[in-house]
């Protein structure tokens, strides 16, 4: 739930027109489900509690929950033992990220990619100077689990953790916080990558970075990271363009 605090302020989370605040909140909660911060089957806090956490009115929250229900990501049961429960659905998340990707602009995606490249590239560069054997072991473990990821959800979560751990290995609390924020923003659209990225290829690329970090080759670790982020960004943009064109016909 920690990613959810504060305002839903980021460009990627803000609906284009008319959607308003409740839609932004619905998306933030959708990201949280995508990232596993809210678990399948988990009961959501009471409406007033959740509204306070998200810093919105209960009315806005109620609208957001209705939206999540319509996407099939939340289920509300009445009566004793009732409440709102999280329903993890790969299909719903894929549809959500598809809609989202169609809505944003190329420049939004480019900017997110630029920012991520800067943060992740610097993190890898500094980690090559400062990562301890324990931190390297943790990164290697994440990368090997990535290779065995069962589905897009697991791959994406492990990859998010990999980027966050890399920033921590750089010994920078600030870079770590930036990376956590970026992963929250990326959560909505990254699902689109599932079709054209194989877990093995993603894992191999990240493994190469970790080995450069282990050999203290910061410049190479940075360059590889920047290339990987640019590659993912380009895929998202291609996808966005194709989606937008097809929706016109």
């Amino acid at each position: 739930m920690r990613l959810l605090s504060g305002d839903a302020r980021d460009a990627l989370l803000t609906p284009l027109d008319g959607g308003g605040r409740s839609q932004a909140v619905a998306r933030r909660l959708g990201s949280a489900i995508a990232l596993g911060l809210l678990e399948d089957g988990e009961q959501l806090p009471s409406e007033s509690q959740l509204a306070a956490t998200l810093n919105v009115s209960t009315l806005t929250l109620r609208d957001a929950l209705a939206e999540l229900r319509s996407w099939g990501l939340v289920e509300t049961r009445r009566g004793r033992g009732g409440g709102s429960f999280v329903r993890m659905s790969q299909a719903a998340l894929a549809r959500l990220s598809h809609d989202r990707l169609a809505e944003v602009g190329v420049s939004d995606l480019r900017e997110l990619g630029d920012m991520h490249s800067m943060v992740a590239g610097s993190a890898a560069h500094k980690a090559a100077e400062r990562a301890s054997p324990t931190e390297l072991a943790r990164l290697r473990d994440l990368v090997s689990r990535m290779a065995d990821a069962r589905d897009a959800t697991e791959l994406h979560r492990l990859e998010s953790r990999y980027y966050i751990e890399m920033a921590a290995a750089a010994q920078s609390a600030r870079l770590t916080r930036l990376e956590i924020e970026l992963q929250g923003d990326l959560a909505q659209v990254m699902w689109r990558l599932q079709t054209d990225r194989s877990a093995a290829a993603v894992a191999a690329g990240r493994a190469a970075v970790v080995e450069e970090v282990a050999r203290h080759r910061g410049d190479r670790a940075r360059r590889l990271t920047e290339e990987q982020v640019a590659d993912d960004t380009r895929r998202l943009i291609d996808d966005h363009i194709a989606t937008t064109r097809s929706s016109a016909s």
Partner: protein
Amino acid sequence: MPITQTPDPASVISEAIEGIFATVAEVRRLALASHAAAVAEGRAFLDPDVRGLAPAFVDLLEAPDQLAVGLGIILEPGTLPSHPLRLEWWQRSTGRDAPVPLEVDLHPDSVGFYDYMAADWFAVPRRTRARHVVGPYVDVHGTDRYLLTLTMPMEADGRFLGVAGADVPITGFETVVLRRLGTAEAILVNDEGRVVVSTTSRWITGCLLPDHERRPGVPLAELPWELLEPPLPEPARAASRGEG
């Protein structure tokens, strides 16, 4: 003639760290007393027992001159019948007057999973049954701060219950040590070769000392730390290289 005494870096550092360990020992005493009380009543140690420790933890955090910004206990899975993973951790945070409980994500499948079983501050005391200091490190998915974490194992009848611990921001520790060191020079490194505190800007907190810079150090008693010989000042370095 008055003797101006340069403080001994090893004792300055030990004193600072033992002060924090005294707090950790108190956290452990409180938790074990609560556990023993449950056992004496012939029942299991339960979640309300753990929650009941909170006011005492808050008092400890608010004690004058407390260096720790967070403290509490982290339980071994199986210790509580109701929770596989459980921690009761309180912290002072900037911009708030009263300490607040640390809320972490304990869902193993989550991006934000706080995998404490894998953290050295938990795993090492669990394995060695001895106290430990970790850091400086970024406490990712936890407090997100740059910290030292000090922990002690908690045991009852030989059974490991978890750890008691305290978080100290590296900045706070460094300030105390630098103030007490006076003119003495020191480079303090941890068991991973990472600089904890130093009196030179050449090797600063958080950096790893490259192997070729490693000089024989003096281990500190009961700490995974070593004090290295202070570096030669720059001109002397150059001169000594020229001679060699």
